[in-house]
């Protein structure tokens, strides 16, 4: 018997549960630079472009990256060409992808979320909108809007009012109570929760002993944060009756299996794509094998098994 990898996020059907994490995979650039034909042979079940904002952002001062033990610190600072350019230049090209597009948006204040959602509301190429309320690299103190349940709820309400598209809210782990923020998002109309964005952290240059990152601190991703992410998925999926997209340190098919068992309906790959640029293409098959040797034949059976 062959395990089915089909899964869904509310009304959004996915051929398998593995998608990319926003900001870590650029299909247009990758298709240009790599030999692989990514538009016809796309490894993920949905495509999440880099977060866009109302106005273009140049991003934070470099250096923006530093490897730590089993982790990566970044302080990109949501560098992007703005939602206009995204809609005009990228969306038409992205529409050629054989999978749904989940646009990711962020704002400098709650009203930006409403404005951005409104601009995407009429775009048929966009299957769902992810509200990134959790980037730690915008404010210097690493305090994202999503640290506050009320501001989160306000941002979600404004987006909800602007569109009937599937609304995913991506939360930060840098809070005392992630479940409270998730509940606030749900009450305000979120259809799905993504956890986790990066964990705030910092590194010093080994020689100068000054902060390595131009932005002083940054967000930690990769295998180092997997235990934090798994716990967030477990808690949020138990507390809420919404589908959860799990991410944070997923590097192997075994990790995907664990995030699904913890309660996720889909799993996103970020940092691991940097480590192994062809990882995504292998994962779905390996996941099926791991499910079958355990006698698990559907994602539904697996999801929340823990």
């Amino acid at each position, binding site marked *: 018997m062959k395990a089915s990898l089909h899964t869904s996020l509310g009304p959004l059907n996915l051929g398998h549960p593995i998608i990319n994490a926003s900001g*870590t995979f650029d299909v247009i650039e*990758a298709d240009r*630079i790599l030999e692989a034909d990514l538009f016809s042979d796309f490894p993920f079940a949905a495509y999440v472009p880099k977060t866009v904002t109302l106005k273009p952002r140049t*991003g934070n001062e470099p250096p*923006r990256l530093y490897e730590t033990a*089993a982790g990566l610190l970044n302080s990109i600072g949501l560098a992007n060409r703005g939602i206009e350019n995204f809609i005009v230049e990228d969306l038409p090209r992205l529409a050629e992808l054989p999978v749904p597009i989940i646009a990711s948006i962020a704002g400098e204040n709650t009203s930006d979320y409403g404005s951005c959602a409104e601009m995407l509301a009429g775009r048929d190429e966009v299957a769902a909108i992810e509200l990134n309320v959790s980037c730690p690299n915008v404010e210097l103190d690493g305090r994202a809007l999503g640290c506050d349940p009320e501001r989160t709820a306000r941002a979600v309400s404004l987006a909800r009012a602007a569109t009937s598209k599937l609304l995913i809210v991506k939360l930060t782990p840098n809070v005392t109570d992630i479940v409270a923020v998730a509940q606030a998002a749900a009450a305000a109309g979120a259809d799905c929760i993504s956890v986790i964005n990066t964990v705030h952290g910092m590194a010093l240059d080994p020689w100068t002993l000054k902060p390595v990152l131009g932005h002083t601190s940054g967000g930690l991703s990769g295998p180092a944060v997997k235990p934090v992410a798994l716990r967030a998925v477990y808690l949020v999926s138990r507390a809420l009756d919404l589908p959860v997209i799990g991410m944070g340190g997923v590097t192997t098919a075994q990790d995907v299996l664990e995030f699904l068992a913890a309660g996720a309906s889909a799993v996103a790959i970020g940092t691991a794509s*940097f480590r192994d*640029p062809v990882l995504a293409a292998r994962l779905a098959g390996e996941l099926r094998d791991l499910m079958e040797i355990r006698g698990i034949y559907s994602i539904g059976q697996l999801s929340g098994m823990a």
Partner: protein
Amino acid sequence: MEDQHIPASLFDCPVVESRPVGAYRLISFVAREVAALARPGQFLMVRAAGQSLDPLLPRPIGVHELESDLVKILIEPVGRGTISLAGLRVGDRLSVLGPLGNGFDLTGEGPALVVGGGIGAAPLAFLVRALAQRGREVRCLLGFKTRGQAVAAELFRNQKVDVYTEDASMGEMGLVSEPLTGILAEMQAGGPANAISTAGAVGDLRAAEIFACGPDAMLAAISGIASDHGANAQVSMAAHMACGVGACQGCVIRTVDGYRRACSEGPVFAAGEIAW
């Protein structure tokens, strides 16, 4: 620099040579496709193949030289990633993504002044050979801190190389940027355009052109000298990288037009583009 759309791929490559070259380590591996495609100044994202999470990510490493199916890289072990690479031995395997980046633009015709600092010398052996093959007059200056690094100059086998060390332990003493003004003037004078006294106009293909790779401070100094002499300079910039393919926005360099990604819009930039 112009992008010539060479497709990059991921390869699993056996190491066939691993030997110390002073403070550095020379590693050769079999990578037919990379050897066939790579141009001077391009780089590879490299890590030891396998499951170990330490280090987690590949590191950008310049193509030092090519020899039929072999690709050679020169490693300075400074941290988690490069120490792991320098530990590779014959029979170990490398995970290699590449070739990546734009590489140097070799289409000029004037004399070439190639300048390297420290491990920045690594990609220049290939460059010097390619320039010479194009029939360009080449002078090469390499600067190092110590003799331990400077022995890497022996890798520029068939090329005349002037070596400078900060501690005078090998070659001339001093920074490689110091003699540059004189040498540049000399080369411009020798150039067929012969318009040096009025400082050869930028874009004049017969004027001397500088190609440089090394620490930021060195590149900044060279850039200043080049612009004083109206010489073109191409500089290969360093940055921490994660994706290597333009996706993560992590490797940006500050240019006069804003941030540019070292991996996909560089690593080679016209010196005048950089906001030093």
